[in-house]
C-alpha cells in the first residue's frame, strides 16, 4: 500500500525532473534551443511530410519541367517536372530513416560487443579491441565507399556499409565505460549476490553506458546523413527515382547553370538538418560534461 503510494508519486516527480533538465538544457545556450528546434522540425517533417507535400514526389509533368520557384512549386521543378518541394519533404523521411537504421545497427552491435568485451576481459577483449583498432585506423568514408562499391550501388547497401564503419566507435566507447564501472560497488555487489553476466549487463551496465552513447549518437546522426548523401552523390547510394537529398543534388548537378534551384534547395535542407543534429549533439556533450556545464551556467548569468 505504502510502496504503491510512493511509486505513484515517484513517476510524476521523475517526469518533472526530466522536464526541468530539458528546460535547463534549452536555456543554457541559444544554440541548444536552435539545434533542438531544427531536430524537432525535421523529425515532424519526416513523419508528416508526405501528408503536407503538395504533389506526389515522383509525379512526372513534362509540361512543367525546369520551372523556377513559384507559388505553385515553392522549390521549382526538375527536368521531368517533378515538384522539388515535395521531393525535398520526402527526402527528410529517407534521411531520418537511414540515420536511424545505420546508428541503430551500429549502436546495438557495437555497444553490446563493447560491454561484453569489457566485462569478460581476457582473450576475447583483446581480439575485439584489435579488430576495432583495425577499423578505426582506416578512414571511415573510404572504407564505406569501398564496401558500398563492393556490394553494388543501392541505398540499402550504403546503409549497411556505414553501419560497418560506425560500430567500432561504440564498441570502444562502451568498453571504456565498462572498464570504469566493473569494479564499482554496485556491480561487485550484484556479483556477490549471485547475479549472472546477462543480468549485470542489462540491469546495471546498460543504463550507465547509455547516456554517453546517446550523446555520441546525436553527434553521429549528422555525419551518417552526410556520408549517405555523399555516397549517393558518388553514385553508390540511392538510385533514381528515390528522392534522397544527395541523389537529388547529383541529378541537378548538370543543370546547375540553367536551374540553380534544383541542387540548391535539397542542399540547404541537408545542411540545415545536419547543423541541427550537430548543434544538439554538441550542446548535449557540453551539458553532460560537468566542467563545461559550469561554464555554461556562468554564461546564463
Amino acid at each position, binding site marked *: 500500500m505504502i510502496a504503491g503510494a510512493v511509486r505513484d508519486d515517484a513517476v510524476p516527480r521523475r517526469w518533472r525532473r526530466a522536464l526541468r533538465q530539458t528546460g535547463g538544457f534549452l536555456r543554457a545556450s541559444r544554440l541548444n534551443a536552435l539545434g533542438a528546434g531544427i531536430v524537432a522540425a525535421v523529425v515532424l517533417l519526416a513523419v508528416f511530410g508526405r501528408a503536407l507535400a503538395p504533389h506526389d514526389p515522383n509525379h512526372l509533368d513534362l509540361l512543367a519541367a525546369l520551372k523556377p520557384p513559384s507559388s505553385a512549386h515553392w522549390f521549382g521543378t526538375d527536368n521531368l517536372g517533378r515538384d522539388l518541394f515535395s521531393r525535398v519533404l520526402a527526402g527528410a523521411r529517407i534521411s531520418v530513416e537511414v540515420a536511424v537504421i545505420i546508428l541503430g545497427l551500429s549502436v546495438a552491435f557495437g555497444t553490446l560487443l563493447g560491454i561484453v568485451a569489457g566485462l569478460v576481459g581476457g582473450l576475447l577483449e583483446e581480439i575485439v579491441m584489435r579488430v576495432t583498432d583495425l577499423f578505426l585506423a582506416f578512414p571511415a568514408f573510404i572504407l564505406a565507399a569501398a564496401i558500398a562499391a*563492393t556490394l553494388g550501388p543501392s541505398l540499402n547497401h550504403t546503409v549497411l556499409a556505414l553501419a560497418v564503419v560506425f560500430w567500432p566507435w561504440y564498441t570502444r566507447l562502451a568498453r571504456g565505460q565498462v572498464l570504469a564501472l566493473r569494479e564499482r560497488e554496485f556491480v561487485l555487489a550484484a556479483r556477490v549476490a549471485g547475479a549472472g553476466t546477462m543480468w549485470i549487463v542489462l540491469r546495471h551496465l546498460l543504463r550507465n553506458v547509455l547516456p554517453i552513447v546517446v550523446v555520441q549518437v546525436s553527434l553521429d546522426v549528422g555525419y551518417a546523413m552526410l556520408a549517405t548523401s*555523399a555516397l549517393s552523390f558518388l553514385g553508390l547510394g540511392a538510385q533514381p527515382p528515390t528522392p534522397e537529398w544527395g541523389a537529388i543534388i547529383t541529378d541537378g548537378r548538370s543543370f546547375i*547553370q540553367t536551374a540553380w534551384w534544383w541542387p540548391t534547395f535539397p542542399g540547404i535542407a541537408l545542411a540545415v538538418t545536419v547543423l541541427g543534429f550537430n548543434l544538439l549533439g554538441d550542446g548535449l556533450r557540453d551539458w553532460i560534461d560537468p566542467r563545461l556545464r559550469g561554464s555554461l551556467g556562468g554564461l546564463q548569468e
Partner: protein
Amino acid sequence: MGRLIARRLAFMVFVVWGVTLVTFFLSRVVPGDPAKLLAGPKASPTEVAHIRRIYGLDDPLWTQYGRYMADLLHGNLGVSFVTRREVTTDVRAFLPATLELAGYSLLLGFLAALVVGTVAGYRRGSALDAGGRLMAIAGLSVPAFWLALLLQLLLHTRLGWFPLGGRLDAGVAAPPRLTGILTLDSLLTLHLHAFVNALWHLALPVLTLAAGVFGLMTRIVRTSILEVVGEDYVRTAQGKGLTRWRVLRRHVLRNAMLPAVTVLGLEFGLLASGVFVVEAVFQWPGLGNYAFQAIQASDYNATLGATLVIAIAYVLTNLVVDLAYLYLDPRIRYT
C-alpha cells in the same frame, strides 16, 4: 620512448596488413569482371579466359593474395587494368595533386580556426563566442559536394572569378615536374604565370575542403584556450606585466596547440573523404578521383593500391602526431 615508437611501428605494420587483407577480399567480390573489361566489349569467351589466365585471375583467392603480398613487399602494386600502367606510376602521377589540395586546405582551415577559436575562447559567452561556435558547426555540417557546386555556381558561373575545375588553364604551360606540386614547382622554376594560375585553380576546391577542417579545429582550439587561460602560469605571466600579445603567443597558444595537434589524425580522415567528392566535382586529377574511377571500373590493382596509399598515409600521420606530442609535452617523454 623508444619502446613506444617500436610499438607504434609494429601496430602500423599490423594495420597495413589488415587493410590489404580487407580490401583484397572485398575487391574480389565486386560484381564486375576485370578480364572482360581488359579484353574489350567484342572479345570472345576464349579470349576472356586467356586474359584471366595471364593475370592469374582464375587461381584460388589465397594464391592470388599470396602473390599480391609477395609483389607488394617488392614495392610492386601491379598493373592498372584501366590505365594499363604500373599502379605505382599512377600513384606517383596523381598523389601530388591530392597532397597539394589537402595541404592548402589544412593550412587555410587551421589558420582560420586559430583566429576564430582563440577569439571565441578569450571572449567566452559573448556573441563572438556563439558566432564562432555556430560557424564551426556549420563548417562541419555543410555537405562538401554541395558547397563545391554552390561555389562553382556563384564564383564561376555567375561572377566568373574562378575557373570551373582542373589544375591549370589549357593555355598555360605546366612548369617542369620536380615534385608534382604545381605551386611549388612553378615557384622553384620561376614560372610565375603558372604559379598564379595554379593558385587560382586551387581556390575553390581548397575553400570547400577547408570548411570541414575549420569546423573540427575551431572547437578544439576554443576548448583548449578555455582550459589554458584559467591556468596559474598564465595568471603569473600576466601578473609579471607581459603584454597581452606576448602572453597569448608564449604561454597560451603554445600550450593550447597540443590538443590541436592530436586531432590532425581526425582531420586526415575528414580530408580523405572530402577529397573523394571534391576531386570529383572539380575534375581534380588526384588520388581520390583515381580511386573512385578504379572502384567503379572494378580495377582491382588500382583500387587496392590507392586505398593502401591512403591507409599508409593515415597511419603515418598518426605516428607523426604521436611523436609531435612527445616532443611538445615533456611530461609524456619522461614517464
